[in-house]
């Protein structure tokens, strides 16, 4: 099908973009999720605010040990980033699982976050990394939302209609941290049935975030605590899997968590 008609705004600055957003306007970044929704007419916004000309949002940099990802950074840019690979290899690993090269060439990191599909890789990896999302609106100014508060339900976030996700802040992982990402999809590049992102630093720090285990990325504090207290990978994975009711998904998730924990050991 074809999209229903809409007005098209192509701002050149962030201020112009914020000015164009509102109740019945949708920001368009990479379009790899929004354009299918438009084509199917599941989404019929009055106005599309195309962010692709807002060059000031296209940056990925390390500053003060923290990774800052502007809203217009393509998934392919993150995938190839030496800065990300050196400091946040979990992101490099996770983004390689996002769909296919042609999708990653257009799709943005910020778009994956704002779309909030519970089977998407980047929200899960960013949740394991305790990322913070900086959002802004013309009327209400700026605020910062922690990953745990940002994702609220499938395709639902804390963003208000006039707010834009402007940048993603990824804090430095703890000293000596190791990370791993594992998922299972029927075909490489399809949405995964289950997955896990793990960040470990000895007995000091463990973060485990699950993909496809609930309406949002799911952290499993009980399994994280168990891991810090010396539980085996299999035991921590069993605790993490207990989040799921379905037998197959529970077994699959636990196995992926176990593999990720061992890889990150």
């Amino acid at each position: 099908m074809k999209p229903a008609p809409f007005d098209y705004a192509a701002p050149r600055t962030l201020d112009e973009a914020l000015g164009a957003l509102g109740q019945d306007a949708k920001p368009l970044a990479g379009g790899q999720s929004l354009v299918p929704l438009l084509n199917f007419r599941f989404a019929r916004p009055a106005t599309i605010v195309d962010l692709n000309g807002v060059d000031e949002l296209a940056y990925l940099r390390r500053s003060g040990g923290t990774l800052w990802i502007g809203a217009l950074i393509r998934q392919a840019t993150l995938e190839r980033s030496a800065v990300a690979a050196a400091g946040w290899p979990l992101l490099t690993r996770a983004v390689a699982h996002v769909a296919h090269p042609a999708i990653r060439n257009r799709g943005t990191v910020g778009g994956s976050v704002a779309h909030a599909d519970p089977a998407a890789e980047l929200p899960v990896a960013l949740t394991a990394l305790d990322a913070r999302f900086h959002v802004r609106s013309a009327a209400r100014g700026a605020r910062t939302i922690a990953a745990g508060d940002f994702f609220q339900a499938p395709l639902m976030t804390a963003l208000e209609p006039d707010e834009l996700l402007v940048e993603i802040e990824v804090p430095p992982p703890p000293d000596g941290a190791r990370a791993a990402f594992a998922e299972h999809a029927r075909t490489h590049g399809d949405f995964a049935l289950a997955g896990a992102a793990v960040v470990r630093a000895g007995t000091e720090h463990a973060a485990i975030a699950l993909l496809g285990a609930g309406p949002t990325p799911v952290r499993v504090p009980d399994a994280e605590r168990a891991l810090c207290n010396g539980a085996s990978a299999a035991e921590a994975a069993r605790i993490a899997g207990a989040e799921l009711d379905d037998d197959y998904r529970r077994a699959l998730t636990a196995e992926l968590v176990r593999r990720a924990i061992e890889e990150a050991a």
Partner: protein
Amino acid sequence: MRIEVEINGRPYAGEVEPRTLLSDFIRHEAGLTGTHVGCEHGVCGACTIQLDGETVRSCLMLAAQANGRSLLTVEGLAGGGDLHPLQEAFHERHALQCGFCTPGFLLSAEALLRERPDPSEREVREALAGNLCRCTGYEGIVKAVLDVAAARRAEAA
């Protein structure tokens, strides 16, 4: 709104609605019907083209977003009446039957070999996983791409 696009080295201009998909502009305004439209939601890969040298789904872009950009479609692969080496190899390996998916595969494969001139079979399969073919079972397609990589290696040696 009016847009100007370069496709296969030639300028094209046209009036489009904001909602006009790039795939429809290429087919209906520019008249380049080698770019095929399958699913219109980014799953099948039939409409894959290159935007400034990078593969993209032309059904997931608005024509307006291509204003001022440079596109490559399957019509731009063959030069001066000679088939592109990938097209030759697809022919040799029986890598197509109905041909609907072929333009998308060719543009994905061309981008892969530019970025990774010596891919493993696994890398070829992963790079082409976003292009669906319902005829061939993929074997011939993968072999064709590996053939081109091998021929280029032999040429360079």
